[in-house]
C-alpha cells in the first residue's frame, strides 16, 4: 500500500465550493468555455500545489481568482493564441466585479433556472444544444434546418432575455426575488 497523501477536508471543500465562482470569473476574462475550463484546471493545479499555504482566514475565492487572473494571461501567452486578451485595467475591473458577485453565484443559478423555465420549448431546446458539447452555431443550424445567422440571432435574443430576467430576480444585496 502506498503512503497516503492527504489534502485537508477543509481545503477540498473550499476548492469544491469555489469552482463555479472561479469558472464564472475566468469566463469574464476569456469568454470561451473551452478556454475557461483549461484556465480553471491550470488554476486548480496551482491551488492544489499551494494547498499547504492555504490560510483558512483568507477568502478562498479571492485567492483563487487572483491566481486565475494570471493563469488566464499566461494561458494565452504560452500558447501564443491569436485571441483578444484584456489589459490590466480591464482585468482589475472584472476582478472587482467578480468579487462583488461571488456571493451571488448560487442565487444567480437559481434565478437562471427559473428564467429558463419561462422560455418556450423551442428556446429551451436551443439552450441545451448550444451549451452542450459540440454546441457550435453551425452544427445547431444544420440540426434544426435553419441558417447559422438565424440561430445566432435567436441565441442572442435568448441570452439577453435570460440576462435581463436574472438581473430582475437577483437583489443587489443577494437573494432571489
Amino acid at each position, binding site marked *: 500500500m502506498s503512503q497516503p497523501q492527504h*489534502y485537508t477536508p477543509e481545503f477540498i471543500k473550499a476548492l469544491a465550493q469555489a469552482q*463555479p465562482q472561479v469558472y464564472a470569473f475566468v469566463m469574464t476574462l476569456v469568454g470561451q*468555455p473551452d478556454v475557461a475550463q483549461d484556465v480553471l484546471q491550470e488554476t486548480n493545479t496551482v491551488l*492544489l500545489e499551494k494547498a499547504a499555504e492555504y490560510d483558512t482566514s483568507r477568502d478562498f475565492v479571492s485567492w483563487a481568482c487572483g491566481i486565475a487572473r494570471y493563469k488566464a494571461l499566461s494561458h494565452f501567452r504560452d500558447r501564443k493564441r491569436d485571441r483578444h486578451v484584456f489589459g490590466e485595467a480591464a482585468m482589475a475591473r472584472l476582478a472587482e466585479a467578480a468579487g462583488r458577485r461571488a456571493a451571488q453565484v448560487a442565487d444567480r443559478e437559481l434565478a437562471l433556472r427559473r428564467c429558463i423555465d419561462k422560455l418556450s420549448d423551442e428556446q429551451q431546446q436551443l439552450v441545451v444544444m448550444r451549451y452542450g458539447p459540440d454546441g457550435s452555431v453551425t452544427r445547431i443550424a444544420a440540426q434544426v434546418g435553419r441558417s447559422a445567422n438565424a440561430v445566432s440571432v435567436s441565441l442572442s435574443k435568448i441570452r439577453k432575455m435570460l440576462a435581463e430576467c436574472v438581473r430582475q430576480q437577483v437583489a443587489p444585496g443577494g437573494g432571489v426575488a
Partner: protein
Amino acid sequence: MSVTQREIDAFQALVEKWLDERATAEEFAQIERAIVEHDELLEVYCDLVGVDATLSWQHRWLPKPAPADDGVLATMGEDLQTERARGGRARVALYRYAAAAVLLLIAGLAVTLWQRGGASQGPGAPQPNGSPEFATVTDTRGAVWEADAEPLGLGATLETGRLQLRAGVAELLTRSTATVSVLGPADVQMLGPNRCRLNSGRLVATVPEMAHGFTVETPAGTVVDLGTSFGVTVDRLGYTTVTVLQGSVEVRLADDDSAPVRLVAGEAARLALRERRVLPATFAATEYADVWTPHDALFGTGVGLQPGAADPHWRVTARSDDASFRARPATAESPIINVPETDTSRWISFDARGVVAVGVEVTFATTFDVAAGDTRQRIGMRYVVDNQLVAVRLNGETVPLTPKQMQDSTATGTLQRLNELLVIDRELAVGANTLEVVVRNTGGPQPTPVGLRAEFIRMQP
C-alpha cells in the same frame, strides 16, 4: 457618466459577437474601453457573460450525474444540510456539481504534477520519484477495514496494493476518472490507472467517456467498460457476476481467446470458469442497492406483471389524435423489442399493444407520494421507448431533454436497450406528484405499437 439605452444595446451586440468569437480586434478594444470606463456597461458585460458561464458550466463541464456520485458527495453531508437550510436547492446543486468536479480534478492532478517534475513538495504534492498513484479515496461510509489493512481516509491515494474492506462502502476515483464504489466485505487491488482487480466482494464502476476501457479483473475473467455503469460480484466460490446498470461492457473468461461477450444495460451474466462459458444471470440491480438505489415510491413500468395485466401504477392519459381519449390503466406487454426482462421494469402500452398511426403521441403517467422533508431529491430514469421520447413532465413542468435523449430509438438502434440515465432534478411536491412521459410513434406507414419501459433510481439531492 451614464450611458443611453442605445449604447447599451450596441454594447450588448458587441459582447454577443465576442462570445460567438466573431468580434474584430477593434470591437474587442471597444468592449475593453467600455468596461473600464462605464460601471453600467461593466455590469451588462458581467450579466451576459455570467449567463454564458452558468449555462456552459451546467451543460458542458459538470460530470454526468451517476449513482456513484451520490456517495462521493455524502462525505460532505453536513455542508449539504447547512447549505439546504441557508440557500435552498441552487446552493445544493452548485455544491454537488462542484464537489464532483473537484474530486475528478484531484484524481487527475497527480499525473499533472509528476509530468511537471518540478512540482512543489507541499503535503498535497506527490513525490516526483514515487511510483504512480492510481486512485484517490473520495468517500468512505461506515467503512470497517480488515484488521491488518491500512485504514484509508478521504483524499488518501492508492498505488497497487489491496484495499480490504470488512464492511461499509469506500469510493475511489481512479486516475482515469472512473468512480469505483467498493461494497464491503471486499478485497480490491488497483493494477493501474484504469484497471483494478476484484478478488472478492462487490463493486460498482461508473465510467465517464474519458475513462473508456476501464477494466475490472476477477478470478474468472475480465470486464471491460464500453461507456457505462456496471456492478461486479465475486462470490465465495469465485464465480463472477456482471450486472450492467447503464451502457454496455464486454466480458471475457480468464485464459480464453474466444471473442468477448457484450452485455448491455439491463443484462447480467455469470463468468463460469469451470464450465468455460459466460452464462446469462438474473439482472438484480438491487444487489448494488448501497450505491444504486431503486426508487422507493416511483415504480418501474410493469413491474412483476404478466402480459396484458393492468399496471396499478401507470396509466395512459392522452393520445394526440383523440381529444376525447379517456385515461386508462397502462398494460404490461410482451417485449415489444427484445430488451431483456428484469426485476425492475418491463414494457407497458395500452389497448392491446397501443397500435397507433405514425406521428401520434401517447402520454404515460404515474403518481407517487413524497413526504414532507423529502422533496429535495433527484430521480434517475432509465428508459427505452417505442419509438421516440418527446417530453417528460414532472407536475406539469417540462424536464429539459437533450437531443440525444430525444433521438428516435428506431433510427439510432437504441430501441434494443435501456438508455442512459435521464436525471430529473426538480423540487417535488409534498404529497402526490405526477410524472408524465410522452412517447411518439415514428413507425412505418401502417399503424404500429407504441410503448414505454422505464425504471427509476433515487439519487442523493
